[in-house]
């Protein structure tokens, strides 16, 4: 659904679910989302474990709503 393989000018390029290139803001939003997902794999204290998941649930609204990414997150307990 999403092309993360293209490289242009040494920088990873991504397109949204409609095949459009991401804007600079969308690129950053997607990076935040991916970072939160990555943090879910970390061994975190309860305060971080819960709040990272709460933040990820909200960020999913952003990337899903902007047609950047659509997936379910049950495997991350989100």
């Amino acid at each position: 659904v999403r092309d993360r393989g293209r490289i242009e000018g040494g920088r990873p390029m991504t397109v949204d679910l409609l095949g459009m290139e991401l804007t600079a803001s969308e690129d950053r939003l997607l990076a935040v989302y991916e970072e939160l997902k990555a943090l879910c794999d970390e061994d975190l204290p309860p305060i971080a474990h819960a709040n990272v998941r709460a933040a990820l649930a909200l960020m999913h609204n952003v990337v899903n709503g902007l047609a950047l990414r659509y997936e379910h997150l049950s495997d991350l307990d989100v």
Partner: protein
Amino acid sequence: MLGIIGGRGVVADSPYWNPKTETLGRERLEALQLAKLRVQCEWAGARSPWYRRLFAAEGFDPSSLSTLADVRRVPLLTRDDWMASQSAEPPYGALPTIGGEGAIRVHTTSGTTGRGPLRALDSRKDWAWIAEMWAYAVWGCGVRPTDTAYIAFGYGSFIGFWGLHYAMEKVGILNVPGGAQTTEARVRQIVDFGATVVASTPTYALRLAQEAEQLGIDLEGSGVQRLILSGEPAGSIPQTKALIEQQWGAKAFDTAGMTEIGTIMVFECERQPGGTHIIEDHMIEEVLDPMTLEPVAYGERGERVVTSFGRGAIPLIRYRTGDLVCRVPAATCSCGRGFDIYEGGILGRVDDMKIIRGTNVYPRAIEAIVREFEAVNEFQCLITREGLRDEITLRVEMKPNWGGDEWGPLSEALHNRLALAHEGLNFRVEQAEAGELPRFELKAKRTVDQRDAPIGAGR
């Protein structure tokens, strides 16, 4: 250390919550729907025991979805299917992709139909999405962070306005939860807190206005500018909507949702084109002939069948809602959204038509006529069988300050209007005592059909 964070961004001055997708043209919107449909079907087939069995039995392979029209190859799901699964494998049935341990909430249907309630699980992500759909409506009807909202809702296990509450918080609106209050207390709080937005069912908006009048509180002179209505089709019945707007001195905006998807699927924008926009970047809404299950054209009535991309815990794919709708193109509205419209909102239920001596009678049509009569406070439509003959009786409760000697002309006018709209069907019109008829906070049930009920039931 405390500090002031500088460099706060600016909220775009946009009439749309999500400009990117709300303004998509039809072709791109459908491309987005197809992309999400593939993911949702693959997810459901892999994770939900129900869908795994269903897809295998019907020979459906999610990877075979190549156009949006292929959605019709996915088997339909009914409420009876869901209930049967819930009964066979309590408490949640085989639809969920997770167990209770992976969820953060469970909500139920209202139970007003007399059947057992559906139980719906939500994960953190799903619950965040539920509020997100309400945010489309909140923003779309012009509510902004400077508003103060009052939600006149019981905050129980019925999902109701829970999602709206969280959407208001998300948008940054001061939110007054109006749970566990008497109607009088709610009216006073609305005024005391200076609410500019009130959310309730259409029926309860009228009830609040009645209460305010009895308390001598001038709602028209209050700060309330907008009413967000949901839970009943009446929010899009022009006569009922006009009555609510007149009593509150505010604009009313209709929305509609269902527990099965957890949130709303349609909302009325500020342009108010006479219907509600479908949130099409998060759902596929089909309109089918309920008998043939073939799609109907724009402008024709049919049954709503919804596929939601929101819930991962309980995927809802091609769910027969039983809602009667009439879909028209997005261009019917001048707001610029690409989302199609349900003209007149939810028109009723496919199965709520009553046949009285060969004449079709719809509760919505009766309500539209009764609301033309300002002196009527509450009403009930009673259908009985007397010997071999069906009878329909409209029972009306008048406003307290109504002049009693006008009953004759008023009842005759009601009788004639109802007969004219129903092929000459003879409606009995009776006056009920003040306070005699039931009042409703949620999902008003004003049509009582006693023909199939056991003797003595409903008396």
